[in-house]
Structure formats: structure tokens, C-alpha cells
């Protein structure tokens, strides 16, 4: 079981879903806080779901308030970075680039991609936490 957990974790890193920041979080976990990482992840997904929702709505409105979108995404990027969600972070960056360029199409596209990555990561982490 341990080995499996290790493998899962390793693959997450190898595939670029997670980066060193995640390891930092793991180091914060100790006997006094045995589930710290899981808690953080849970919090992240909860919060980011909210953000995604906001962005979705903003995009659906079609008004493309890039400033606002950028602001949301900045937040999203911040938390994604904090837990080491590497791929999600990349998408965030791209999204912001499109925002700055005023490229609505690019924003939409990127956002879809971002949501996908986000969902994938969530599943993988859930799997990981269950295993460990």
C-alpha cells in the first residue's frame, strides 16, 4: 500500500500535476497535523470551485470584463501555486495572458483547458489521499 501511494505520488510529480510546492506542504505535515495536506487540498478545491464558478458566469455573460477576469484568475493562480498544482497554474498564466491581450477567444479556450486540468488533479489527489 505504501508503495502504491509512493507510486501515485511519483506519477503526479512526473506528469507535472504537482510541483515542489506540494512537497513543501507535505513537510508541514507532522504528527500534530497528520492530514494537513489533505485539508489544504480540500480547501483549495472548494475555494477554486467557487472561483471557477465566478469565472464561468463572467464568461457566460459574454461581457468579458478582462480586468475582473484577470483578477479572478490571479486569485486562482495564487492558490493553485500555493498547493503546487503545476498544470493548473500554467493554465492560469495563459488565461491571464489572454486577458491582458483582450483575447476573449483565447480566454474561453484556456479556461476550458483549465477546468479540465483542475478536475483531473482533483481526481488524482483524491485517489492519492485515499491511498495514503
Amino acid at each position, binding site marked *: 500500500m505504501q508503495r502504491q501511494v509512493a507510486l501515485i505520488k511519483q506519477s503526479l510529480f512526473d506528469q507535472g500535476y504537482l510541483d515542489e510546492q506540494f512537497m513543501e506542504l507535505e513537510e508541514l505535515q*507532522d504528527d500534530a497535523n497528520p492530514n494537513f495536506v489533505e485539508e489544504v487540498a480540500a480547501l483549495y478545491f472548494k475555494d477554486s470551485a467557487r472561483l471557477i464558478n465566478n469565472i464561468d458566469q463572467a464568461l457566460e455573460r459574454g461581457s468579458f470584463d478582462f480586468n475582473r477576469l484577470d483578477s479572478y484568475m490571479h486569485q486562482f493562480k495564487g492558490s493553485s501555486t*500555493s498547493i503546487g498544482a503545476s498544470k493548473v497554474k500554467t493554465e492560469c498564466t495563459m488565461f491571464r495572458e489572454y486577458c491582458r491581450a483582450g483575447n476573449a477567444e483565447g480566454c474561453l479556450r484556456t479556461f476550458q483547458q483549465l477546468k479540465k486540468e483542475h478536475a483531473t488533479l482533483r481526481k488524482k489527489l483524491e485517489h492519492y489521499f485515499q491511498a495514503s
Partner: protein
Amino acid sequence: MMNPSHGRGLGSGGGSSSGRNQGGGETVVEMFPSGLRVLVVDDDPTCLMILERMLRTCLYEVTKCNRAEIALSLLRKNKHGFDIVISDVHMPDMDGFKLLEHVGLEMDLPVIMMSADDSKSVVLKGVTHGAVDYLIKPVRMEALKNIWQHVVRKRRTEWNVPEHSGSIEDTGERQQQQHRGVSGAAVSGGEDGADDNSSSVNEGNNWRSSSRKRKDEEGEDQGDDKEEDASNLKKPRVVWSVELHQQFVAAVNQLGVEKAVPKKILELMNVPGLTRENVASHLQKYRIYLRRLGGVSQHQGNLNNSFMTGQDASFGPLSTLNGFDLQALAVTGQLPAQSLAQLQAAGLGRPAMVSKSGLPVSSIVDERSIFSFDNPKTRYGDGLGHHGQQHQPQQQMNLLHGIPTGMEPRQLAGLQQQIPMGNRMSIQQQIAAVRAGHSTQNSGMLMPLAGQQPLPRGPPPMIPSSQASIRQPMLSNRISERSGFSGRNSIPESSRVLPTSYTNLATQHSSSSMAYNNFQQELPVNSFPLPSAPGLSVPVPVRKVPSYQEEVNSSEAGFSNPSYEMLTNRQNDWDLRSIGIAFDAHQDAESVAFSNSEAYSSSSMSRNNTAIAATEHGRNQQQPPLLHHQVYADGGNSSVRVKSERVSADSAAMAFHGQYSNQEDLMSALLKQEGIAPVDTEFDFDAYSIDNIPV
């Protein structure tokens, strides 16, 4: 999967240093920086949670807040309930910078900005708004471990400027403590709580004071001693003889350099009469020295400076280098000057040059070379020298304000460049520039000052190596101070005053003749006991310095004149030190040494002081101490002048950086001079009032 040992938290940071806090017996101090009260503001709950966890792991007390408004009200309700604030930049309800401003204005707490945005403009904004630091997300533990330094730094600043911040009232006590701590540091070898090699060498003191204050405990020597002002000075100094130092080194090696704790070292050394504080301060210096050897550059230099300023006056950079109080030793005769020179040379990796006088001229020289970073002709312009140079400027700067500014030599260089006003550059300005430790910013500021202060001096010899020069005087000062401590006379006081100025000057810019002149004037003071002071004996070493001075002092006899000439001739190579030494050679600080520059100095100084004071005053409302300059300037005697210089320099420095500790240092210096015994760690003063110097 977890790393259980991680809970230790600080690691090499504050946690370990806390154990080494001075033996005030303050548990708080001992635990420093554990228990630091941090307020974290971030609308991102994930980040907030992670930060909280990290900070807790650092053994800090954490309060989370996801809205700026709430944070502000928390802070307002509990003005002294927090030590530091960490805030995100982008927040929905209030811009992080706005919060930063509020906190700065209302509570004057250090604020660290944080963001996933690392664009330069934002970071710059943080700086200009007064953030003490800017962290890029994802924030790592390492970044958080050392945030306590900002607290200490700020506290020191506040203490030095009594009317400055809201924390004054409750730090009134602290101030005393601080002063005590500061002077104590200088006197008793530094009570730097942070034995650890954290960058804030002297801040340990402050922290201690503040911790004490915070926990409402009285330190042993905290408090009301301050009234007697330099009470710390009266403590007998410990002279680190070669044997003693060797014992020390042996003990440290036995314990392991990184793990060596003053307490244990003390036990191992088993030297009667040696206090933990002595060992602590010495350890600090030693560590700096080791680091310096290790090739770390400016920062260590800064540290050295910090050490020097904060601690024994007699500890010059060289002393630190060798882990010996070489100068002190030399001065006190325990260590023949030649040996000192050799030791220093050895330490510096340079050929030992023994001064004729047998005094630690070489040390001075070495120092000089180290310091005169932009003086290619520096005798010791070898790698080490240059390296040293880089250090030195910083050191010098640190000396000035005892803050490890980590100013890069290039910064200094930058300053120098920016301070093109050979004649106009007032020492203060230079000092300010140096002190600021900020390159361009300071330089820029200096410039204006220069303009404002018409220094009547003649063509100021540009002394690129003013820094070096300055160093020398400092060294001399140190020596003098040491001597003074050895019970000679009031020299130390004057010496004390000068070093700071000199340092500043030296570091700042060599181009200012004014500076030189000032230095010259001051140098004699530093190096010698003031003419008025009994036992002008120090001058000897000073004399010797000139010989080392690269080419500055062609003659050994008529120092004053040759010095001047040299100054004039060699502006680029001018080694302020040599100049100073030249002056020093003149026992009569007031007359001979200052002969040429005397007129300048007094007038310029007064002028500078006044101008600077005025300038600074205008610039920085918070610096009432500037007035001291004027007071001092009016004194008219050399000591006064010295003070003025210092003050001016400080004021100038302060003017430049409103937020910098320089002001505080200046204030301290000024206050000290006035016998107020301000916290003056940086100036390497032991709260001596210059007034005490019989002129």
C-alpha cells in the same frame, strides 16, 4: 510520508538563535524569535491556511485574517498585539498596499507584502509603499523563517527615534533597554541576542528589549540605567587576548561552529570573569569573520559592521576578521602592534605590514584597503582587499547604523558616483548616502543635499577611498576606544563619535573634500583622545597608518600637511583613513590636525550640520534629533564638531531615508551625544556623551 522533525520550525533561524540570547534571563528573549506575533491577511483561504501552518511551524503566533478591514480593526484594537503583518497584495475589499500604508501610519508595524505576482512594478510598489519585504507566492518556509529580522530592525529604528512612532510610549522602557542593550553591546561586547548568524546582528538586542517589554519583564540591565546614559560604558571591557581567543576558538570548534552556544562556550572556556555576553558578542564577531573568510561578501561585511558598531568599539572589521580584537589588543599593549598587523594581515590574507609605530596600522591599512573599494591603488587591493572593500563599505555603513544593510559595494559605488560633488558633498550627505545603504536612492538624495549645502571648502580632494580612509579613523577610533576602555580617558567617546561619521564618509564617497575635511577633523578625534582629553596617546597608531596608506601619506612627520596634500593630490586614492590618521597625528585635534581643514570643518560642519539638519528636518519631520546637529555644531570644539559631523551625517542619512534605520542611528548618536544615551548600537558608541569629552 511526513517529515516529523519538521516541526522544529526555525531550524537555523530564529529558533536556534533564541537560545543564545543574552543572558538577560528573559525567557522571551531566550525564545526569540519564537512567539513572534504575526498577522496574516489574505483573501485566499488556501494560502492563508498554508501560511498559518508554516508560521506556526516557525513557532510564531499566528492570527489569520481574510479581509483587510478586519485586519485593520484587529490591529487598531490591539495596537501592540502584533509584531508583524503579512499581507497579500490583491484583495477584494482593500488593496494590499493601502493596508500597508495604514498599518505603517497607524501602527508602524513592519509589513510584508506577498503575491503570486512577481512583476517588478508590483514589487517596486511594495518597496515604495514601505513594505519591509515582498514575498512571491508560493511562499516557502525559508522565507518565513527569518521575518523576525524585520521586527527587530524596525524596533531598533523606532527606539532610536523616540518621538518617532507610536510604539514609543510603550517602548519607552524598551528604549532604555535598547539603549542599554545597545550600549551594552558596545560595552560589554555586545548583547546581541542573536548569536546566531542571522543577519540582524544587533537586532537581537532590540528584540530582547522588546521582548522583555512585551512580556513585561525587566531585563537585568534594562531600564532605567539609561538615565545615566552611557552606563554601559562603565562596564569593564573584555579584551580578547590571543590566548583568550584561542580558548574561545577551541571551545567553538569543540562544540561545532554552527552549534556553538555562548553558554556552552563559556563553560568550556572556563575563564573567570568572562560573561556570557562577552562570549556571545565575540561569537557573533567570530562568525562573521568566518563567513567573511568563507567568501561571502557584502552581507557578511555588513554583519561585521553591525558587529562592530553594535559592539565593542574596539572591534574593527579587522578585528572581527581575525576574531581578535586586534586593535584592542594592540592598543592595550597586549598584542604588539606588529603582531596585530601580522595577524590581521594573515587574517586578511595579506602580507603583514607592520607599522612603524608598531601600532595596528596594518590593521588600519588592511581595513583601509578593504574598505576603499574603489581605490584601485589600495595596497591591499588584492582579491581579498577588494572583497573586503565590498565589505567595508557595507561595514562602514553598518557601522553607521548598525544595520546589516547588505549594501552592495556597487551600491556604494553607485553612491559615489552619484555624489559627484567633490566639494559640495557634505559629509553628512555622504554619510547619509552610506547609511542609507541604498544605492541610487540615497545617492540621489545626497545630491540634493549637496546642493543645499554650500560647503565652503576648497576643491575637495576626491577620495574614492574615503571609505577606506574612514575606516582607518575608525580603526583608530576603535583603538582609541579600546584604550579608553582600558581606562585611559575619554577618548573613546570621541572616538566613538567619529567612527560612525567616518565610516559613513568613507563609505559614501571619497570625493567629498568636505567629507575629508570633516574626517580629518574627526579623525584626530577618533584616533586620538581629543586634545582635551588626557593622555593623547593614541595618535601613534594613526601616524603609522599613513605610512600604510597607499601613497597617501608620504611623510610621517607632518601628517597634517602631508595628509592634506595627499588628499588634494590624490583624490581618487585618497584614503580617508590616511587623512584621518594624518590628523590623528596631530594631537591637537582641534588645531593642528584641523589646521587646514579646521576652518572647513568647523564651518562646514556647522554648515553641514545646519544645512543638513535643516534639510533633513524638512525632509524628515520625524527627526527632531537633527536639531542636535545644530546644537553640536555650535559647540565649536572639536568634540562638538565631531558630533555635528556625526549628527549631520546621520541626519543627512536620515533625511534620505525616512524609513531607514539610519535615522534612528543618527538619533541615537545624537542623543548619545547629548548624553541622552540613545540606543546607538550602530555607532559603536557606548552611549558616551561627547560632552563628556573634555575639549
